[in-house]
């Protein structure tokens, strides 16, 4: 029986196609699952805000609580490492009490590396 007849048959082609898709997806996951979430905090004028606290909230069917927090560096950038989550919310807060909106974060798989759009904080800038 020729190879074409074996592989062209639906009982072989369909499972093989599914297996390839699954394998390909898992390889992609393996290369991108450092759990890195990075972004910046800016104020309304667009200037970076150093020293702001960024909080990551975990929310699912069962609970809604803070998971981790970090502070932005001198250029207003923040970074979470090793986050084993696929859904959550980010919020930035500054020392003078202003905070950004809660940004919903949804990932395609657990611990996906992702970069979020800047979190906007209303800071009175002298």
């Amino acid at each position: 029986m020729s190879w074409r007849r074996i592989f062209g048959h639906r009982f072989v082609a369909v499972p093989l196609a599914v297996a390839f898709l699954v394998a390909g997806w898992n390889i992609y996951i393996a290369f991108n699952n450092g759990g890195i979430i990075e972004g910046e905090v800016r104020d309304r004028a667009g200037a970076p805000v150093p020293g702001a606290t960024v909080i990551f909230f975990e929310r699912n069917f069962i609970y809604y609580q803070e998971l981790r927090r970090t502070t932005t560096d001198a250029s207003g950038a923040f970074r979470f490492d090793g986050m084993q989550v696929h859904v959550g919310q980010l919020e930035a807060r500054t020392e003078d009490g202003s905070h950004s909106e809660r940004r919903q974060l949804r990932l395609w798989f657990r611990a996906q590396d992702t970069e979020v759009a800047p979190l906007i904080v209303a800071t009175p800038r002298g």
Partner: protein
Amino acid sequence: MRRAPSWPRHAIMVVVSFLMLVPFYWVLKTSLTGENIYAFPPHIVPIDPHLFHYVDVWYLIPFPRYLLNSVIVTTMAICGNLLFNTAAGYALTKQFPGRRWVVLLFLSCMLIPFQATIIPAYLITSWLGVLNSYLGIALPLLSTIICIFIFKASFEAVPRSLIDAARVDGLSEWRIIVRIMLPLSKSAIATNVILTFIWSWNAFLWPLIVIRTPEMQTLPLGLARFLSVMEDTTGALFAFVVMVLIPGLTIFLMAQKEFIRGLTSGATKG
């Protein structure tokens, strides 16, 4: 020969097809929508569609666990079926005293629906000690009578000359089955596999009775449990439904011919 115009029939069939497909579409659109699904009026096209409900279902149900359980039970059922039905079908092609009674026995077992046996079947399974285990779920599914008769018919169609030649060559009975009869019965094997797959994949009442812990639940049980345990306003439940239906639909569409042949072989007597 003048045929009646075909457009009225097409029109009726289109309406029928639409009615048959509406449930699929309604659930699909609900699983994709980003809004509160209980708001009235529901939108025909999903607002703010996203696929993240599927991600939620995968991690939080836990879908992989239920999928694994279903796959294990189904694989056990398919392997058991292929083994036992082939053997029984081959044995029935031979002449032996009491053959008529055995055939009659099988036919009468076909008349006993599974639902008439659930209480004692539960007691027997618990007496055997396989309650809440993969074997316990798969045990009643390990053989089906329709498939035995399908194999019997298929084996009887093999020319006697081939079998006799194999006997002269000194092959043992099991070798005869594997080397000669099975390769000629590919459609019977495919029919058996697809029928067993559908019946064991979709089985709900028996796993409901036998399974006692959440980790051993199969997909249908997980679906029913989600319904009763989680109450939320997103399309997550319907994403779960779609994810559960995809394997069944894929395999059905792949093996449609064999499935239909298996179902209708019960329609032809014997």
